[in-house]
């Protein structure tokens, strides 16, 4: 469909002997909306800065349109960046900020004027031309930053947590806005975020990163439905992750019971990680359940209740629209398609147990990453 635009090959990056990136291999297609997703310190911003030309990788190559660009300085790349916290020029007004790149590239005056006004319209900032940057709200500054980058019609736009400083409502609006702009202008977006929801709703492709390595690359649905390891399953959405044994194709055993599943291709009796999403679990009366457990905590979430249910000492998170009080005994049923099997990895046993559950668990992941370098 689209052709390949950027390729990262065996990229590593070290600062003071500490390995920040460890063998990144990735290609990015023209017109793609690709998101680098991961917790603070996973190397996503470093990867972005290498593509932007602000860092030179310790080893490996970066190619753009088939040409090696490792040593090409930022000002010679057809790439523009929307910086974390915007980095707008405080000594210039809105108009001059947006016109900055065009002036540097000696675009004729009347064309500059036309394109700046066009961009102001795209980001809905008409009439703000001569406002000073410091007199703008966060959301407005954000849009100036996007306009300043897009007005140059770059082939690729890099966005480093561009919505991190905005409140939730504004963030949702800007997500739609960004997606619309990306599709309308046909520009490749490389987007860095630690917000999995943002990544799922905007991206064509998500690259999940942790510890300087790519954990999984895929479409949002695939990443969510077929996580490759416990890290991805836990980072994207909520997951109950249990130890299981793959008896044979389509048969998995956990909690002393054999379940049908839809996965195959494992060795007989291979130990595996079993992922069960909280929203996929059906609650039934205890006598009809595959498993029976006790509710230990209930949190009202608006759309649903988050309940923690203890099964044989292991706590699961279940999302349900029906209320089940603390202490009540419930049964659950698992359909084959609700069970996802993953190979064991270095992350096995680290995630997916809700024993230390607190109501703030989803906020924790959101606060986690802000700035990294």
């Amino acid at each position, binding site marked *: 469909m689209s052709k390949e635009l950027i390729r990262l090959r065996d990229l590593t990056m070290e600062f003071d002997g500490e390995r920040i990136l460890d063998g990144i291999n990735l290609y990015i297609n023209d017109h793609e909306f690709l998101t680098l997703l991961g917790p603070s310190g996973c190397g996503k911003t470093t990867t972005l800065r290498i593509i*932007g*030309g*602000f860092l030179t990788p310790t080893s490996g190559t970066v190619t753009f349109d088939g040409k090696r660009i490792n040593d090409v*300085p*930022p*000002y010679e790349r057809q*790439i*523009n*960046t929307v*910086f*974390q*916290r915007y*980095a*707008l*020029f*405080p*000594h210039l007004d809105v108009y001059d900020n947006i016109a*900055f*790149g065009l002036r*540097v*590239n000696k675009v004729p005056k009347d064309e500059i004027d036309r394109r700046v006004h066009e961009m102001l319209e795209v980001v809905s900032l008409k009439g703000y031309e001569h406002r*000073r940057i*410091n007199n703008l709200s966060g959301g407005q500054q954000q849009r100036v930053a996007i306009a*300043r*980058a897009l007005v*140059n019609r770059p082939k690729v736009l890099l966005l480093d947590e561009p919505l991190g400083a905005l409140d939730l409502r504004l963030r949702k609006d800007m997500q739609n806005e960004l997606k619309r702009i990306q599709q309308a202008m046909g520009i490749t977006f490389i987007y860095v975020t630690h917000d999995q929801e943002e990544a799922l709703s905007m991206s064509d492709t998500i690259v999940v990163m942790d510890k300087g390595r790519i954990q999984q690359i895929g479409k949002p649905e695939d990443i969510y439905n077929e996580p490759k390891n416990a890290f991805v399953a836990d980072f994207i959405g909520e997951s109950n992750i249990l130890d299981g044994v793959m008896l044979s194709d389509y048969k998995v055993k956990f909690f002393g019971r054999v379940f049908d599943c839809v996965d195959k291709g494992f060795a007989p009796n291979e130990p595996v990680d079993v992922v069960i999403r909280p929203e996929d679990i059906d609650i039934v009366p205890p006598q009809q359940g595959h498993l029976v457990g006790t509710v230990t905590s209930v949190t009202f979430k608006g759309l649903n209740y988050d309940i923690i249910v203890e099964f044989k000492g292991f706590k699961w998170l279940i999302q349900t629209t029906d209320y089940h009080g603390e202490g009540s005994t419930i049964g659950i049923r698992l359909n084959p398609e609700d069970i996802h099997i993953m190979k064991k990895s270095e992350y096995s046993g680290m995630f997916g147990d809700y024993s230390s559950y607190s109501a703030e668990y989803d906020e924790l992941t959101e606060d986690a990453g802000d700035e990294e370098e």
Partner: protein
Amino acid sequence: MKKNNSILLSTPYILWMVAFTLIPLGVVGYYALTDPDTGVFTWSNIRELGTYLPVFGQSIMYSLVSALICLILGYPVAYYIAHRGAVMQKILYMLVMLPMCMSFLLRTLAWVGLLQDTGIINNLLAAVGLPRLQLIRTPAAVVLGMVYNYLPYMILPLYSTIVKIDHRLIEAAEDLGCTPAETFRKVTLPLSMPGILSGLTMVFVPAVSTFYISQKLGGADTVLIGDVIERLYKQGNNANLGAALSLLLMILVFVCTGIMNRLGGDEEAVVV
């Protein structure tokens, strides 16, 4: 209660200001407008100021030239310091401050020792068989003295402005196509403006009123307004005319700082 306390606490300073700044200012004004012999009101001192305008012009010129040279010398130094590591920055900052720990008079006298006709430089020249040079008692020596003494006043405000410039702005400029030279011209330099203006003011103001430097390093043709005022008070016995000159000098300094502040006012918001 709180209000009372703050007034109480600031009382010593207010008294100090009244006793040693406001009252003397009034005295200067009084002297400037009275006759030296009779003590009655007169405009004659003010009228006489016209004859000193060339000296004023000379003082302003020397100070401006010195301030500009300080800027040219100081900017690269300040830029360099601002881009070192935290520890190195502190060390270099201390080194810039170091000369200020020594007496201003001593520092100027040291230059006399270097530059005078039988000074170190000329003796060295003579030793290798070269002719002696007229170094002291020249306009260049006066400018040198000013630059040497006031350079730290230029570097320090420049440094503190440059060090505050957000590095991401530099990256943003490069990202938008600026070569390093263009980045400097379009981003770093405009954002350094508050430091440049305050550095220029900090050098210009003491330089324009100095007398010691021109007396020690200058000659008969490098008389500055400070020298004239000093002479009128100490030798000419015309404190009234001296007071009038002081008044004019003060107004000049106020106007200059006013202009600087006006120019810098626009950028003020940038720094804060």
